[in-house]
């Protein structure tokens, strides 16, 4: 059963057609990779899922209902979380506070006026946040201000923040960009573990083929705003259309 169903999505910026008749379907419980050369429209597509951009035409259905016309926070509340290309975290707050915020958002919904409650006495939130920090092994960094973390840790923190919401669908925009090989392997392990343990559906944009082929159960190749191939990983490698898109012609 597909949890995310994208049909005939078009999006243009002025004269530039960023997405043309994009069709995509992400199966529940799988890791679906979206690859393609620079400027193929991968990030634009992701932005259409989370309400940052609104497609000109087409439909985006998540878990049986349309995401179009919903605000970003409403989409998130239905169970879609996103990890950004450059980590979007609360950089002035501590690691622990960073993880607590999505826990509160999950429990209290999009708005809750509780100025007289104490953060200290919210036992369930603390339990969950502690648990989450263990999962991404950041417990020793809990009191650090998020901006002082290393790049890899910032990414891990952002991932932990998304996971703390128990999303149904996790969107990852180049989760290993700019990472050293060792960090990349750690991230692959982390993602694989998350998928095994929690069965969260993931859509991953990635450039690193090593990551793509070690994680993805299905791959969509995007080029010049259209999906040229959608297939299993083993069929993608030698596909002539993919080679054409990446190398500029079949050889």
């Amino acid at each position, binding site marked *: 059963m597909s949890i995310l169903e994208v049909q005939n999505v078009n999006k243009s910026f002025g004269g530039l057609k960023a997405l043309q008749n994009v069709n995509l379907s992400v199966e529940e419980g799988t890791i679906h990779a979206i690859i393609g050369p620079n400027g193929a429209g991968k990030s634009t597509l992701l932005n259409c899922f*989370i309400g940052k951009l609104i497609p000109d035409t087409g439909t985006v259905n998540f878990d049986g209902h349309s995401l179009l016309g919903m*605000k*970003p*926070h409403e989409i*998130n*509340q239905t169970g879609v*979380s*996103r990890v950004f290309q450059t980590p*979007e*975290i*609360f*950089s*002035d*707050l501590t690691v622990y*506070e960073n993880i*607590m*915020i*999505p826990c*509160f*958002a*999950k429990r*209290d*919904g*999009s*708005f*809750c*006026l*509780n*100025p*007289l*409650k*104490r*953060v*200290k006495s*919210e036992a369930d*939130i603390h339990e969950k946040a502690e648990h989450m920090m263990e999962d991404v092994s950041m417990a020793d960094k809990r009191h650090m201000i998020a901006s002082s973390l290393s790049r890899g840790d910032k990414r891990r923190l952002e991932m932990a*923040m998304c996971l703390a*919401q128990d999303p149904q669908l996790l969107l990852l925009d180049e989760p290993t960009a700019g990472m050293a090989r060792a960090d990349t392997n750690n991230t692959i392990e982390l993602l694989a573990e998350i998928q095994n343990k929690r069965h969260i559906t993931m859509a991953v944009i990635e450039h690193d083929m090593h990551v793509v082929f070690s994680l993805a159960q299905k791959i969509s190749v995007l080029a010049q705003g259209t999906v040229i191939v959608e297939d299993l990983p083993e069929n993608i490698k030698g596909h002539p259309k993919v080679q054409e898109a990446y190398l500029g012609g079949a050889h």
Partner: protein
Amino acid sequence: MFDKFQNNDRMLMLFFIFLVLAGPILLAPLGAGYPDLLQRFCIFGIFAIGFNILFGLTGYLSFGHAAFLGVGSYSAVWMFKLLTMNVIPALILAVVVAGLFSLLIGYISLRRSGIYFSILTLAFAQMSFSLAYSVLTPITNGETGLQLTLDDPRILDAANTSGGLPSTNFFGLTMNSTSKLEFFGMVFQFNVGFYFCAVMLILAFYLAMRIFRSPFGLMLKAIKTNQNRLNYTGVNTRPYTLAAFVISGMYAGLAGGLMACTDPLAGAERMQWTASGEVVLMTILGGSGTLLGPVLGAGFIKYFENIFSKINESVLHGWFSFLPDGLEDLIVWVLHFFVGKGWHLTLGLLFMMVVIFLPGGLLQGAANIIDWIRGKKQSSSTQISNPNSMPAE
């Protein structure tokens, strides 16, 4: 240690209560122990605490907060005119009206953020100021300001009317009654109005502290650092910012109402942009985003305004009379630019130095000094202990 102290809320609260209640005694040696100024410390402290909830916590710089202060004052005076001279109904009305007014302005202004938000609030405040001066004269009494008169209805007080204008009271305790105490040649003045304002300040501080430590406050901090992330984390930031705006507007209304309680008249100049700018200065000077900072900043600015501005050349001559004549004249000539009418210059320089060297405000300065003293103590103690720890050969 200072961090620990700040985290320990109960200690902080007790320290604050002591500081405020002992104000008349602590400040008397500094020449600031008279009721009028002490009341102003409290009132502007409340104003700055409220402003800090919006600016320090949420990161929205409002340049029009004086509008709510003015609205609070007008509402309170109207309550004195129509209903009773008791301050409680007046304050309740002031807070409610300022809250509603800030709901309206906030709803519109918060559609934008950053500089556009600041400009929108400034525009609204200046609009309110101009309206209070001109079109709304029937309500605000225009240039003269809203005052009590003998033929006001004062429905609840009708029974006990005597000849003169009545004064504001708290269930019979007159606001401007003062008991004086002489001690070691110094006069300490304990004023009902001050203690009423002080209690209000303590309550306001306590409430702000609760907000700082609540999940709601955490969300406001998150809005300040990354509003985008918060949106994609499933939080609707608009109602949060609006709630912060209204809460800080109500604080301003309370401050305005207290102003009217201590001196029952209200003028439009309270809403002018200079008054809005002043609270920004107070918050930044003291340390925005901290609990104590805004109160400290408010005290500092009001102290400068009232005490520094009173120092004139003859006072300076008195201070430096021990110096030889030529030198004395020179020093007095240099210093007279910075005191008296020139107090703005000193304040400006101080503000510049704080912003450049202490971005965390005076409170950060205090923390640095404490750390420095502790560091010095530690290093000297290690110096002493080192020779002992070395094995004697």
